[in-house]
C-alpha cells in the first residue's frame, strides 16, 4: 500500500472519527454557552442513545421508532438533570456545578451497568456494510451517514440560533444572562432547553455511531473527553469552531497513530487540549464577536 494511499486512509479514518467528536462537542457547546456549565455527563447521553435504540430494536421494535424513543428518553434525562440537580445548585460556583455533572455521569453509568451489564450491543448499519473504496483506502457507508448527520445538525443549529425565537433567546442568555432576563427571557427555561437540546444531540451521535463501533455502558467516558477537546478547540461557543476542532482532532489522532506510533493516539487529544489552552484559549478560530453562537 503506497504512502499516498496510507495517508489517504489515515485522513479518511480521521474524518470519520472526527465527525463523531464534533457531534459530541456540539452538545458541550450548547450547554456551556447558555449555562457556563461544562457538562461531563454529555458522553452518557451518547451512550443512552445507542443502548436504548439497541435494546428496543432487539425486542422487535422498528429501528426508526426505537431511535425516536431513545432520543426522547435522553431528552427527558437531560431535562431531569437540569431541573433536579443543576437548577437547585444554581448559586453554587461553576466548579461545583461541573463536579455535579461528573457525579451525574457516574450515576447514569452505574445504572446502565446494572440494567444492561457489560455486554456490548449493536444494530444494523443504515445502508449496509460494504465499504466504499477510494483508491486503496476504504470508508464505511456508516461514516458517510455520520458526516451527513453532522452536517444536518450543524445546519439546523445555525437556523435555530439565527432564525427562531427560542434560538435567539438562547443566544441572548449566552451573551448576557442578566440582560436577557431583563428583556423578559426566562433564563430558567432556556437552561432546560439547552440541556434538552444537548441531550438530543448526544443521543443522535450515539445512534449514528453504534452500527460502526457497537455500544456498551462505558463508551461515554472516552467520547466525553474527546468531544470536550473538540468543543474547546471551538472556543466552546462557535458551531464552526467545534466542527473544525472535532475533525482536526480526529485527523491528528489518526495521523499520529499512523505516522508516529499507535501509542500516541490517545495522548493526542490531551496534547491538542494543552496547545489550544496555551496558544488559542479563545478557540482555534479565534474568539467570536459578541452576538454569535
Amino acid at each position, binding site marked *: 500500500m503506497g504512502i499516498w494511499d496510507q495517508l489517504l486512509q489515515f485522513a479518511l479514518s480521521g474524518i470519520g472519527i472526527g465527525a463523531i467528536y464534533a457531534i459530541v462537542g456540539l452538545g458541550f457547546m450548547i450547554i456551556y454557552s447558555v449555562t457556563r456549565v461544562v457538562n461531563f455527563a454529555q458522553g452518557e447521553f451518547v451512550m443512552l442513545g445507542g443502548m436504548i435504540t439497541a435494546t428496543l430494536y432487539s425486542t422487535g421494535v422498528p429501528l426508526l421508532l426505537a431511535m425516536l424513543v431513545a432520543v426522547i428518553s435522553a431528552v427527558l434525562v437531560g431535562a431531569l438533570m437540569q431541573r433536579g440537580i443543576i437548577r437547585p445548585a444554581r448559586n453554587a460556583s461553576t466548579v461545583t456545578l461541573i463536579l455535579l455533572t461528573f457525579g451525574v455521569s457516574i450515576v447514569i453509568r452505574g445504572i446502565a451497568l446494572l440494567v444492561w451489564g457489560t455486554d456490548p450491543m449493536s444494530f444494523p448499519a443504515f445502508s449496509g456494510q460494504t465499504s466504499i473504496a477510494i483508491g486503496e483506502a476504504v470508508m464505511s457507508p456508516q461514516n458517510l451517514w455520520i458526516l451527513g448527520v453532522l452536517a444536518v445538525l450543524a445546519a439546523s443549529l445555525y437556523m435555530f440560533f439565527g432564525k427562531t425565537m427560542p434560538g435567539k433567546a438562547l443566544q441572548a442568555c*449566552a451573551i448576557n444572562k442578566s440582560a436577557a432576563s431583563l428583556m423578559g427571557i426566562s433564563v430558567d427555561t432556556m437552561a432546560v432547553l439547552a440541556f434538552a437540546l444537548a441531550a438530543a444531540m448526544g443521543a443522535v451521535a450515539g445512534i449514528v455511531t453504534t452500527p460502526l463501533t*457497537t455500544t456498551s455502558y462505558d463508551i461515554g467516558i472516552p467520547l466525553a473527553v474527546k468531544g470536550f477537546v473538540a468543543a474547546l478547540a471551538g472556543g*466552546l461557543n462557535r458551531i464552526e469552531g467545534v466542527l473544525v476542532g472535532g475533525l482536526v482532532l480526529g485527523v491528528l489522532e489518526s495521523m499520529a497513530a499512523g505516522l508516529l506510533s499507535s501509542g500516541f493516539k490517545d495522548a493526542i487529544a490531551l496534547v491538542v487540549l494543552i496547545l489550544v489552552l496555551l496558544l488559542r484559549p479563545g478557540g482555534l478560530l479565534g474568539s467570536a464577536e459578541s*452576538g454569535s453562537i
Partner: protein
Amino acid sequence: MKRLSRTPVFVVILALVMLVVAACAPAAAPTATPTKAPAATTPAAAQGQATKPATSSTPPAQNLAPYKIALVTALSGGFTGLGLPSRDAATAMVNEVNAAGGINGRKLELVIYDDGSDETKAVLAIKKAISDDKVLAIVGPTGSGSSMAAIPVVEEAKVPMVTIASGDAIVNPVKSWVFKFVSGEMKNIPEQYAYFKSKGVKKLAYLNPSNAVGKAGTAFIQPSAAKAGFELVSEQTYDPTDRDFGAQLTKIKASGAEGLIVYDATVTTALVAKQMKAMGINIPWTGPYGILGPANVQAAGDAFDGLVVPAPKVYVAGELPDSDPQKKVAFQFINAFKKTTGKEPDPVGMHGWDGIMIIAEALRKANPDPTNLADARAKVRDGIEGLKNYPAVVSILNLSPTDHEGMPPNWMALVQVNGGKFSVSK
C-alpha cells in the same frame, strides 16, 4: 462573545484536571457501581438443596459438617464476562456433587462473593471468607490484578486458592498455596505461533491493547517471535476504549504482514475483525481463546468466518473422539451447566467448574475433618498439588510442587469459527 477573561480559562483548566481524572475513570467505574459489600450469600447451597433428588444413592449422613468452599468472582464490574459464567459453572458443579451424595457423605457448601472486578473488594471478600466463613479453599478471584493482590493474604492464612485469571506472574514463581488453571500468554502464544507456522507465515504483526493482558502479550511476543522463526514486521497497540483501528490496520497492511496476533479477549476483537474485513485485510489472525466468547461472536457476525483460535477442547467437545479422556468431563460440564441455568454454557465458565471439581477431588482423596481447619486446608492443598494426569475441562493436568498450572504443551485444539459455530480446523 468575549471569551478572554480569566474565569472561563481557569474553569477550563480545572476541567482539564477533571478530564484527566475522567480519562482514568474506566478503572474507577467498576468500583463506583453499587456492588454489595461482600455479602455472604449461599444461593448455590440453597440451589443445591432444592435440586437434590428426593432419593440419593448414599443418603447424606447423620449431619456431618459440610465442606465449605468460597467462590470469589466478578458478578459486577468489568470482568463479568469471566465471572458470571464461572459462577454458574461452579454452582452447577456443586449441585452435581451434592446430587450424587456429596463427598464422603458430607455436603459441599458454596459461599459466593462478588469481587466487583476490583482488587480491594476481592481481598476483603477473601479475608472474610477465610475468617468468618472458615472456608477450606477459595476459587477465584477474577482477574490477574485481584489475584496478585490476594496472594499474600492466602499465603499467610495458609488457605489454598485456585484463581480465575490468566496472568502468568500468579504462579511464576510458584507460591505454595496458589494455583491457576487458566493459560496465560506463556502457554497461549506458542500455540498461536504453531498455528501460524502451519499456515506458512513468516512475517508476523501484532495489534495488542495497552491494558495488563495486552501488555503481557506484547512483552512475551517481542523477545520470542524471532526465536520462533518469525520476522516481526509491525507492532501496533490500541487503547482498550478505542473503537477505530484504521490507522493501525493501515500500517499492518502496508508492512506486508502475513499473520496477525490480537492479544485481546474483549468485544474489541469483533470490531477489529470487522475493520480488517472492510479494509480487505485477509491474512490469518488469532488471539487468546476468550475471543470465542458468545458476545464477541455475536457482535462480529460474519467477520469471524474463517477465524481459527487455539482453545481448550471443550469448545469443540462434540467432535472429540470417545477415547479422549477430556470428552467425558467436557460433556459433564456442558450438561450440568445447561441443567442449572437452562442455557448453553459460555465455555469460559470451565474455570469455575474446574476449580470446584479439583478441590472436590482433593477433598475426596484426603477426607479431612473440616472442623480442623489448618489440617483440612493443608490436605486440600497437598491433594491439588499431587494431581497427575487429571482430566479437567481445560486440559489434562499434571501438577507438582514446582508447577501449579499443570498444562502440557500442544494441548489446545484449533477451533474454527463459521457462521457463529465452532468446529475443529482441518
